[in-house]
């Protein structure tokens, strides 16, 4: 969407005047778009569902196909139409669509802060009562996951994808060759770093140009040093929470790592999204990679031999003197479906969302390498592409006392973007740990 807007011919032809028209082309749609069929203003026969359009979308497509032929769909009198939105465009596209008459009836999201603006604008159906009254939904999902997407203790979403905890991945062959064990404490991690650097191997791959991989380090460090309460306070809207000593300490550890060359000297121009960081890791140029659980399927797709033989995984180590539980996890508990409050046929949407609690749906997720958040998931894991890895992930999440939602998702787009900028500056050495803390306290 953005990329087409500033094309050179319009720049040349409309000169300055073009700037405004280009800038507002997107804004204008919110005011001028005419109602198109199938949206929330539609007849209720066909409901539109927006979904993040990546590889995992085949699970949702299969669910829609299954549902549209089912008795439940006939009873509710309609069908679902899936609209796959390319990943990088998802958030802005959803935002502009939700402000227009062609808004989706059901849409994918990350729960928490990612839907806060919609809740405040009265655009979401409160699903708390519906879930409580429906045994399929109430007992269908892990309670902690269902709760992780809440806003002020109310449910606005139904879990619909796998769990995505952040995991410390390591290259088994590099570790074996240098007689190393995955670190369980921060001191061990620093020790391993020193040995790897002596062997001219970058300790950690990091896709620093995307910024969100940087964020994972802060999320875990703050959790290990000060526990999940530190970020919980920030998430609840108290910007002074950034002043917690745990945040400063975490930022200092990050700076030490960066200065020490733990991420190599080029990480600020390496990307995860375009495959740079996974390739550095798979080719043994870097020994470890702190990344979401999707790293496994990424590697399986790009470097299958590496994924099958040499990819190892471990929990994030403890930090000496920290109060956080080593079993705590950060990342994305899962993704959710939410319902637009302007929907014409709510029963049809609910009937479809129940499909996500079904055995067939969970099986599709497992086949893709995901670990579902349904309560029946553990018995299905033996059929996963790598049952050992699936079991590790499931146990990690099931045993975790706290699962902190990725900070950027928890804070929502507006704050999350500004926080990204500050994190990018910290990692690039453009600001000191104390400047980072001061800048974050000023975010609003």
């Amino acid at each position, binding site marked *: 969407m953005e990329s087409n807007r500033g094309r*050179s011919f319009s720049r040349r032809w409309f000169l300055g005047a073009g700037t*405004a028209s280009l800038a507002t082309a997107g804004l204008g749609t919110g005011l001028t778009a005419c109602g198109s069929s199938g949206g929330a203003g539609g007849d209720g026969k066909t409901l539109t569902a927006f979904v993040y359009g990546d590889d995992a979308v085949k699970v949702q497509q299969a669910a829609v196909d299954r549902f549209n032929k089912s008795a439940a769909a006939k009873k509710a009198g309609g069908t679902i139409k899936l609209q796959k939105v390319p990943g990088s465009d998802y958030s802005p596209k959803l935002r502009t669509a939700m402000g227009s008459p062609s808004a989706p009836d059901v849409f994918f999201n990350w729960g928490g802060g990612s839907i806060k603006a919609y809740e405040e604008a009265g655009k979401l159906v409160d699903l708390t009562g519906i879930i409580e009254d429906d045994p399929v939904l109430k007992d269908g999902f892990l309670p902690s996951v269902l709760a992780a997407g809440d806003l002020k203790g109310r449910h606005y979403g139904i879990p619909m994808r796998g769990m995505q905890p952040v995991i410390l991945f390591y290259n088994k062959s590099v570790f074996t060759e240098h007689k190393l064990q995955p670190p369980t404490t921060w001191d061990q991690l620093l020790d391993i770093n020193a040995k790897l650097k002596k062997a001219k191997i970058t300790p950690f791959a990091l896709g620093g140009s995307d910024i969100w991989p940087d964020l994972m380090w802060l999320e875990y460090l703050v959790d290990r040093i000060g526990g999940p309460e530190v970020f919980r306070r920030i998430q609840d809207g108290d910007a002074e929470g950034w002043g917690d000593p745990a945040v400063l300490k975490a930022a200092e550890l990050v700076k030490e790592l960066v200065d020490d060359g733990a991420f190599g000297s080029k990480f600020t121009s390496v990307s995860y999204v375009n495959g740079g960081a996974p390739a550095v890791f798979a080719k043994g140029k870097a020994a470890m990679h702190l990344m979401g659980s999707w790293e496994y399927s990424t590697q399986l797709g790009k470097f299958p031999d590496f994924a099958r033989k040499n990819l190892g995984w471990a929990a994030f180590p403890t930090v000496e003197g920290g109060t956080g539980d080593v079993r705590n996890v950060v990342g994305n508990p899962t993704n959710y479906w939410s319902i637009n409050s302007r929907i014409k046929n709510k029963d049809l949407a609910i009937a479809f969302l129940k499909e996500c609690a079904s055995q067939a749906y969970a099986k599709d997720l497992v086949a893709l390498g995901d670990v579902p958040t349904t309560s029946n998931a553990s018995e299905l894991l033996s059929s996963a592409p790598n049952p050992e890895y699936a079991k590790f992930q499931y146990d990690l999440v099931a045993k975790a006392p706290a699962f902190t939602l990725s900070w950027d998702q928890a804070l929502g787009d*507006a704050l999350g973007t500004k926080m990204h900028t500050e994190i990018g500056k910290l990692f*690039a050495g453009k600001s000191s740990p104390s400047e980072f803390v001061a800048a974050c306290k000023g975010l609003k």
Partner: protein
Amino acid sequence: MTAVVEKRPPGERPTTKAKASSIGRPHAAWALPGVLFFTFFAVVPMALAVYLSFTSWDGLGDPRPVGLDNWQKLLDDPRMTQSLWLTVVLTVASWAFQTVVALLLGVWAAGRQRNRAILSAIFFVPFLLSSTAIAILFYALLDPNFGIIQKDTLGSQSGAFLAIVFVGGWQFIPFHTLIYQGGARQIPEVLYQAAAIDGAGPYRQFFSITLPQLRHTITTSTVLMVVGSLTYFETVLILTKGGPGTDTAILPYLMYEAGFKTYDFGYASAIASFLVIAATGLSLVLVRLTGFGSMRSTREGM
């Protein structure tokens, strides 16, 4: 070569045609499609942006009027100051790089040999590619681990800036070369013949004939470059995302971030309106300073 035609007051047609039939002559209605198109796709959105700049709007619900808040923020925002400075640096650097290369290439390509025509056509190819495709291509080439230059190019401010200026130049120099080629071919051959007789060498000819004769071409090309640099966006988005840190976050990128990442459409509209004002002002100043507006012919006195 007297300039009779040029000296006629603007808008007055030659008397010999004054009584000609009005059929086939330009009529106000002919402009209608263009005017309508421009109104709907430029004037209306622009007015909308100005209106939005006085409101607070997150993309949901209705815009809420907030008076001059966004404009006040524009003045106070340290990122805006930084962006403005970066935009100026980028504009000047792009102009210098593109003008020097395009001018030399254009004058060289103005020669009449067949190989030059073919080479000129090849030169033009980068301009035909989409900016996005070019940026993605260079992003891959600049990959620090797998690209052709295995350095942390985009990881430092100077590296990222040079990359943006170079990629922009790579794309737009062909276009400006074409303009200079056209301009250089308009210069009467007699001037060079006379200069040669007087004993002027190629360098003297270039500086005393070619450059002065090209001054309107330089203005045209400069206005396009300057205004183009003010809206330079895709390359920054794809190559650096405004990074490292905020080191390459020029104004259009800041506008995009305010609008489509933090959903502060009011502030984004204020930045957009500021860009329109700056671009219009700058082109007016350029035209005035260079005397382009007075429409003096470069052939006067010949």
